[in-house]
């Protein structure tokens, strides 16, 4: 289980980016974080694997706090947390399978990792995962030759080969066309159930969040304004998220 308690962060003094964020997610669940841009969604997500150092709070993965890790412990925690990015963040010049295998680096010795020496089992698993995300025939293609939707599925395979407990997705479909968006969201949802992992995704399309997520958390100006089952999310609740910011912009 992933538990976030009283998470607080400010980049500059007296300008809090996050104030007292608390939520938790069970394995097999898909949580969407929605909110206007600048609300603090990316900051939350990057705190969860400590790419950003937050100021206060607790982040517990199965009871152990990631925030108090030393370097070696953090590396062990990070390999249990996959991450999927808006811009895919692949090494474009390398092949699809090499990018998938990058997900194994956290488990390897520095030397083997530096020179990309992987075991037969790892290579086989990479191929199986590519099959699962529908890219079986693309293993030896350069990533730069793929479409956006295909790149994102390589990113998902890279996170799955980490054998993650959690997958964090920061606007995973913001650069994709509607059809690829649905493919990627469906894939994330199915994998969450199949591998019994926790999926946390920042989204700004509310309809997609409602369709694919089990639960939706709303963030506005660094504060959590609601935490609801996606079926229960009503128009009134959604208004609390956008109403004030829109009216402020209109002034």
């Amino acid at each position: 289980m992933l538990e976030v308690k009283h998470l607080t962060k400010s980049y500059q003094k007296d300008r809090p980016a996050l104030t007292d964020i608390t939520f938790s997610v069970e394995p097999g669940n898909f949580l969407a974080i929605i909110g206007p841009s600048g609300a603090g969604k990316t900051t939350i997500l990057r705190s969860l694997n400590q790419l950003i150092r937050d100021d206060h709070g607790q982040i517990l993965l199965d009871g152990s706090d990631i925030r108090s890790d030393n370097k070696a412990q953090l590396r062990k925690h990070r390999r249990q947390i996959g991450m999927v990015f808006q811009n895919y963040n692949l090494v474009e010049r390398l092949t699809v399978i090499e990018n998938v295998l990058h997900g194994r680096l956290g488990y390897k010795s520095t030397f083997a990792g530096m020179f990309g020496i992987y075991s037969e089992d790892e290579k086989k698993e990479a191929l199986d995962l590519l099959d699962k995300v529908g890219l079986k025939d693309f293993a030896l293609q350069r990533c730069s030759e793929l479409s956006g939707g295909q790149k994102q599925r390589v990113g998902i395979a890279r996170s799955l080969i980490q054998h993650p407990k959690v997958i964090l997705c920061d606007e995973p479909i913001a650069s994709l066309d509607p059809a690829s968006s649905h493919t990627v969201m469906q894939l994330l949802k199915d994998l969450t159930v199949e591998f019994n992992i926790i999926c946390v995704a920042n989204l700004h399309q509310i309809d997609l969040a409602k369709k694919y997520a089990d639960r939706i958390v709303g963030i506005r100006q660094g504060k959590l304004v609601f935490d609801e089952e996606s079926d229960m999310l009503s128009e009134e609740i959604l208004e609390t998220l956008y109403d004030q910011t829109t009216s402020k912009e209109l002034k």
Partner: protein
Amino acid sequence: MSSPIKFLAQKHRKQTAIIAVIGSIYLLSSWILNFDSFSGFTAVPRAFNWLGVNFFPTSASVELLPQIWKKLIETVALAVSSTVVAAIIALFVAILGSKATGINGYVHVVVRGIASFFRNIPLVAWAMILLFSFKQSDFTGFLALLLMTVGYLIRAFMEIIEDEASETMMALKATGASYFQVIFQAVLPQIMPSLISWVLYMIENNVRDATLVGILTGTGIGFVFDLYFKSFRFDAVGMTILAIIIVVITLEVLSNQIRKVIL
């Protein structure tokens, strides 16, 4: 509030003013240099005419080709070796100094400062300073080119790393990869095309610059050029220039081909 029409009129006036300012700067500098524009321009065709007559390679200068060719190869080798060594040093320093992969902000500022220092001392000044310690030798030329190139490449490589590798670095860091794994698996493959492109560009430049340095250090094609020039063998000088031009253009075409393949 100013209306769009007013804005456009203002913009038009601004542009006219800028052109007027540039014009006056030109006139002012001509006046300072005592440079008469009109006779300056009419002198250009005459100068070319003189060059064409005096510097035209003759059959006697063709006989010098083997010697010119040998020295030219030396010069190209000097440019290539100094650039390659500079690139290796610069890559190492850039990794330590860039905002994305570097040690910290202080190192970043210091590295930028050092790079700027090496870059901004003119090549000729480097060569003259180094002549004191290393006398007239190939090594002096090598070192002068090396220092200047290191200055250029450190800055270029740091910017390439920051622009092109930051995002993939983050992705690999998030998988739990260690620092050296991230450098080797993400940063280096990601920046390789831009890096090679810069090295090729510096080699092209350094072949031209190595000629100049050779005049000072008495080596390579620069030495041959200087020798012919001082003994008034202008046809041989013309032959030398022609050979240099051919080599520089060939290198340019070659490196453009390489770029096309790697990018």
